[in-house]
Every structure is written in structure tokens, then in C-alpha cells.
């Protein structure tokens, strides 16, 4: 039963820090991906400096990062806890669509609908969480089912773009605080909140513990179910915020608005050095992943590559980034 516990000699601390140690530390802290981001920025500055640094392009770049950034924040939290959330894209879709359809141009409905959408995101997250914890189902399956279920519901509500948001909402989406888009401020706020929750609260420590080793966390007296349910609620809420902002920006709702977002979100989390097994990862890394993906899309436009090449480049980047920056798992 415990035969594997044969005392093994402690790993000897290596004398000088090798390059590999540096890379490992950079990956663990989430700094590695920012190196690539910096390189890409330098390249773009050299090749298309004027166009890249124009206020218009910077604003577009920041705006394009908002939806993915919000969804990635939720995905980051879920993956830290040792799970995965495939349903976030469909949650963005349904909240986008419902925001537009329910507001339908009436300013008075704006506020209640936004609240309703947040509640819907939280509800769907709660269902995910309950299924994962109470029925002990694998998160992959639960959220895959939820993905189809919610996408189906969205198509059932409307199979074509529908509804209309108010001009106030559109103005907010395109509004700016100085050079910074207002929607980006929302993302920045969400990052700050999630960072605080994960690093400065008991719940945050519990998320890391549950993702690191469920049994050990339970042995330490953590009520793991409650921790996990809140993880999925967080993810659902953030997806709803992303959906509302997406509706505001596109002014109508589309039944395919969030397609593929779940995979992009997982991509950026992984590129950021977070372990898919849970328990290890930094927000810095995940946000670096968001920056990288947004930059790639942006650079393809700037460098006038055919937009069809985006996915191809994305695939290469994912495999290359993970291959180079794989942080060795302990033990």
C-alpha cells in the first residue's frame, strides 16, 4: 500500500542556475509568453511602425482582447481548479443574443436585461458546478454537454442575427477613457478582481489546493465541492459579461457570436504556462496569452496576410510555445 514511500535521497540543489532553470521559472511565473509578445511588438514596430502605433490600431487591439480576456479569466480559474470549461463560448453566444433580443432597442430595458444576463451566466455556471461536484461527473463531459445544450438553445431562440441594443450601450462599447477603450477598462477591472480573489483570499488558496490534489485538499479540511461550484459560477459570470460587451459592440445579437471562444480561451491559458492538470498557473501568463493571440490577429491584418492564415499560425504558435516552455511537472 505504501511501498512506494521508500526514502529516496533529496534532489541535490544545483550549484549555478542553468538556462533551463531560468526558463522554468519564467514559465512558472507566466513571464515567458510576454517575451514572445515583446518580440512580436518589436517586429511589428519595425515593419509597420506607423500603422501599428496609431491610436486607432491600439484601440482596436485592446478592444479585440476584451471578450477573449474575460472568458480566459474564467477558464484560467477553472483550469487552476483542475477542471475545464468547454461551455464558455456558448454562454457568450446566448448572453449576446439574449441581450440584443430582449433589449430590442428599448433603453428602459437595458439595466434589467444586463442584470438578467449576469444571473443567467451565474446560473449556468452553478449547474456546471453542481454536476461536476454532486454527481461527480468529469468537467470535460459536463461542460461539453452544456456547450451543445446552450448552443442549441441559442439557435432555437433565433437562427439568424436578431435584436438590437440601445445606442447608450453601443456608445459605451466604443467609448474611451483617454486613449483607452471603456470595454478594456472593464477587462482591467475583472483582471484585478480575479487576481485579488485568487491570491489574497482563502477561496483563492483553496482553488490552488483543490487543483493541486483533490484528496490532499479534502484532508486539509477544505470543502472541495463548495470551492469548485464557485469556480464554475465565476466562469459563467465572466462569460456573461463578455457576452454583454460583445452585444454592445456588434449592436445586434448573433446565434454564433461565441463559437470557438472556449478553445481560444484554453489556448491562451495553456500558452501562459498554466498546467492543464491544475494547481499551477499565473494570471500574468494567461493575460500574456491573450495579448499574443490578439497581436497575431492584428499583425495578420497589418502585414496584409490573408486572414485565412490566422488559424494556421495559431496552431504553429500553440505547439511551439508549449514545446519550448513546457514546465516540467514535479514528482
Amino acid at each position, binding site marked *: *500500500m505504501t511501498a512506494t514511500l521508500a526514502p529516496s535521497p*533529496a534532489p541535490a540543489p544545483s550549484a549555478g542556475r542553468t538556462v533551463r532553470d531560468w526558463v522554468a521559472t519564467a514559465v512558472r511565473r507566466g513571464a515567458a509568453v510576454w517575451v514572445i509578445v515583446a518580440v512580436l511588438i518589436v517586429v511589428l514596430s519595425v515593419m509597420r511602425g506607423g500603422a501599428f502605433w496609431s491610436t486607432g490600431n491600439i484601440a482596436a487591439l485592446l478592444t479585440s482582447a476584451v471578450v477573449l480576456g474575460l472568458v480566459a479569466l474564467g477558464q484560467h480559474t477553472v483550469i487552476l481548479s483542475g477542471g475545464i470549461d468547454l461551455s464558455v463560448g456558448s454562454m457568450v453566444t446566448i448572453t449576446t443574443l439574449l441581450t440584443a433580443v430582449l433589449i430590442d432597442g428599448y433603453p428602459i430595458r437595458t439595466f434589467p436585461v444586463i442584470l438578467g444576463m449576469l444571473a443567467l451566466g451565474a446560473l449556468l455556471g452553478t449547474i456546471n458546478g453542481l454536476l461536476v461536484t454532486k454527481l461527480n461527473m468529469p468537467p470535460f463531459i459536463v461542460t461539453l454537454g452544456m456547450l451543445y445544450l446552450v448552443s442549441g438553445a441559442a439557435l432555437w431562440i433565433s437562427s439568424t442575427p436578431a435584436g438590437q441594443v440601445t445606442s447608450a450601450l453601443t456608445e459605451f462599447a466604443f467609448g474611451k477613457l483617454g486613449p483607452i477603450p471603456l470595454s478594456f477598462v472593464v477587462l482591467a477591472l475583472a483582471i484585478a478582481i480575479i487576481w485579488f480573489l485568487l491570491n*489574497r*483570499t482563502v477561496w483563492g488558496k483553496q482553488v490552488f489546493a483543490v487543483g493541486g*490534489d483533490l484528496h490532499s485538499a*479534502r*484532508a486539509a479540511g477544505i470543502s472541495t465541492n463548495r470551492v469548485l461550484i464557485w469556480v464554475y459560477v465565476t466562469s459563467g459570470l465572466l462569460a456573461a459579461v463578455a457576452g454583454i460587451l460583445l452585444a454592445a459592440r456588434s449592436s445586434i445579437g448573433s446565434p454564433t457570436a461565441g463559437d470557438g471562444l472556449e478553445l481560444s480561451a484554453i489556448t491562451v491559458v495553456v500558452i501562459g504556462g498554466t*498546467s492543464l492538470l491544475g494547481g499551477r498557473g499565473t494570471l500574468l501568463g494567461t493575460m500574456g496569452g491573450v495579448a499574443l493571440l490578439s497581436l497575431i490577429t492584428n499583425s495578420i491584418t497589418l502585414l496584409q496576410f490573408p486572414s485565412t492564415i490566422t488559424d494556421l499560425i495559431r496552431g504553429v504558435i500553440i505547439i511551439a510555445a508549449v514545446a519550448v516552455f513546457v514546465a516540467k511537472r*514535479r514528482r
Partner: protein
Amino acid sequence: MAPTIALGAREVTKSFPGVRALENVTFACAPGRVHALLGENGAGKSTLIKILTGDQAPDSGAVIVGDEEMSFGSPRDALAVGVTPVYQELTVLPEMSVLDNVMLGHESARRGVLRLREQREHARRALERVTLGGLDLNTIAGDLSLANQQLVEIARALVSKSNVLILDEPSAVLSGDKLEALHTVVRSIVAEGTAVVYITHLLDEVRDLADDVTILRDGRFVSTGPASEYPMERIVREMVGRQVDSVFPDPADRRDEVVLSVEGVVPRGADCVPVSLELRAGEIVGLAGLVGSGRSRLLKTLAGVRQRGDGRVSVGGRPLRASLGATIGAGVVLVPEERKRDGLVLELPVGQNTTLTALGSISTAGWISGAREAAAYAEERDRLGIRSSSGAQLAKQLSGGNQQKIVIAKWLRVGPRVLLLDEPTRGVDVGAKSEIYRIITELAAQGMAILVASSELPEVIGLSHRVLVFRDGAVVGEVARDPESSEKIMHLALGTES
């Protein structure tokens, strides 16, 4: 007004599929005392601890805390009433910092928001008590040595306000100064009125530390009393306790031909004395020793599963390369300890499991012949007495004993000259045990050389021509086949007699 029982169990029974782990065990630990819980491997200590700490629920009986009966749904419930365990299997989270690990489960916080300075102060104080005062709190726990991880875990237990501290064999990873430091901590918390349940295999620790002793054997309560009434001889006698059953067939005579010769073998990455031994045709040699004493490691090294660090092995006089393929080719095979993980493909039919090692013999140009597979299985079924509905039954559906026979059958298909068995009857019921003993004895009579590692003393003694006793990776003694030798083996394994 302190309770008389800080932590106890009343008539606790617990069964796992095929095994009765605990039967009517009663236990009581008083406040302010160190209570040593003793027993052989598999005596039920770990199961009792898991029940006392809410990790598992008893089938019947009750846990008692502070004189009141409790029913724990999870470890959380036990922690809430001040029962804090330090498990033998580490629960340190390797990706988290030392600070977070020490404070896990009892963070200092206001409304869920951590109070960082208080956190660091508490953690620092707890770490100082376990001699890790100089440790950087931000160190990632996984970078620490096993001993220090254990101390971090003990520090975690010290932070919470516990009435009872349970230490499950800390001396398995701690030694020297660190073990001394732990003893100092234990004495100081006991002086404050905390009860300590201490599990150990080192009888010196019992003498130095324990106030009371309880002994378990085969999942049953044997005796309890103040430590002063337990001289070493009594402890060993009561831990071993039973007579060797008569279920063991007498082994046939060994032959003179040396089949396996091992010279100065050291498993790679292990820091231990080289092992040398010789095994003759028809000979059964038992390997005894505590968990972690190096028996399994040696068997895995001989089988080529684990790499050899040093030394030479030869089979029938020909040197053997240290690779799995070469080892099997030379006819040295291992029936592993973890049957379900390493021995079987649980989701495959038993027929396919049986022929997995010798697919060449049942196939032509890569095409497997179903008829030949069935014939091979039928042959082994009759030889070993495997009971399954058919060759198509899935391995996972068989009982432990029949699964073990399949693993043995699988290796017999390659025509081995040396059979290595690691805990061959673990999780096997009594009836199937004696059948496996018969199989082992018959195979030896046919000329196979056999090494058997087992934690069950009667088994190693009853089966073998002679028994080698392991401690800290080295052979510390050899004992002849004699039912009376079990106490001698226990003394050798524990290091209580030179």
C-alpha cells in the same frame, strides 16, 4: 475537567472487497499522553487512522472524541473537533509555497480576505517549532526534501488548535536531528494536554516517547496498556503472534545447479548496500522486511523494470543485460505487487491477458489465431486451476486470487527459469492463498528458481527453503525454514537485535 478519552474507537469493523481490514477494534487515547499504535504491515493501523480522522467511514462501531461518540462524514468534521492527522502519504501540495501549505485549511483571514502578516507570523512560529525556522516561506514545497515536506505537514498540524495529533509513521522519512526535533515537539504539545497517537516501526521510539501502547494484528485488537509493561520482547511477540499455518506444502528438495546469481547489485538512484545472492534450481527464497526496506525495489531491479545502478546478474552462468527485454528473454519474470496496475489489462478478456507475453507463439505473420489463444488459455486454466466463466471473461471481473493466477499464467507462457513474486497473496482470500502456495511449490519442484517477497511472515517462512531479511535496502540476515523463526525475523527487520 479533561475527558478520559481524547480520541478512541469502539468496536470498529471495516471491510474492503475481499479483505476484512478491521474487526471489532477498540482503542482509546488519553489527553496529555503519547499513545503508540503498533502492528505489522497490514495489521490495520492505517485503516484505523483513516476511520479516526473521518477519511473513511466504519462499517460498524463508533469513533469517540472527548468521551462523545462521533460520526464523521469527511476529514473536515474530524478537524473541526480538533483531530488533526499527519498522514504517511504526504498531503503537501508540491506546487504551492511553504507558507500556503502550512496555513492551508486554517488561514488567518477576515471575511475571506487573507491577513498576510498574520499568516506569515503563524507559519513562521509553527515552522520554528519543527526546526524549519530558517526556511523561506515562499519556497515551492515540491522543491523541499521528503523529510522537510513531512515537517511542513507537521507544522500545518501545529497551526490548528488540535486536541489530538495523529502521526502516521513519521520516522519513515525523518531521521537523526529531524526526528529528535519531532520528539521534542511531541513532548511539548503533550505537556500542554494534547493527545498524540504515534505510529512507528522503530521500537526505540516507543521506548523513548510512548506513554501507552496498543497492538493490532490481522485487523484485530491484541492488547493495550502503559508502555512500561511492554518490553521489546513482548511487543514483537504480540505483533507477530500467530503460529505458522499448516497450509504450506513442504517444498521439494533443491538442486545443485545455480540458476540466478546476483553480485553486488544496487538499484539505480538508491543509496544502499549492494545485494548479493544465489538462487538454485528448485529453490524458493523468501524476502522479508518492512515496507520500504527495499524488497520490491530489488525484485524490480532483477526483473529489469528498474534500472541497475551497479552490480552483475547472471542467469545459468550467462551475464544478463539490465534491460526488460533481455531479462524476459533470459527467463527472469516478475509477478508484480500492484496486480491491477502492473500485472493485468483489466478491460481485456482473461484469454488475451494470459497470452499477452507470448503473442508470437499464438500467431502467424502477425495474425493471431483465436484457436491457439484459446488452447493456451485452457492449458493454463487447467494447470493453475483458474476459475472464470470462459476465456472471454474480462480480467476485472475475476476475484483477486484468480486475477493473480492469470498474472502467473501470463509469465509461465514465456517459459521462465526464474520467477520473482512480489506480495503474491495480497488482496487474495484464504482459499485462493493456499492454492497459490501450492502452485509456487509445484513450480519450484519442476526446477524453477523462485524469489518471494512478502510482508506476511508466515507466508515467507512457510513457502521458502530460506528467508533473507531486508532492512534499509540491505540483507541483514538469513533465517532457515522454521516456524519458530518469525520473531527472529521481526527483530532483524526492526533492527532490535544484532
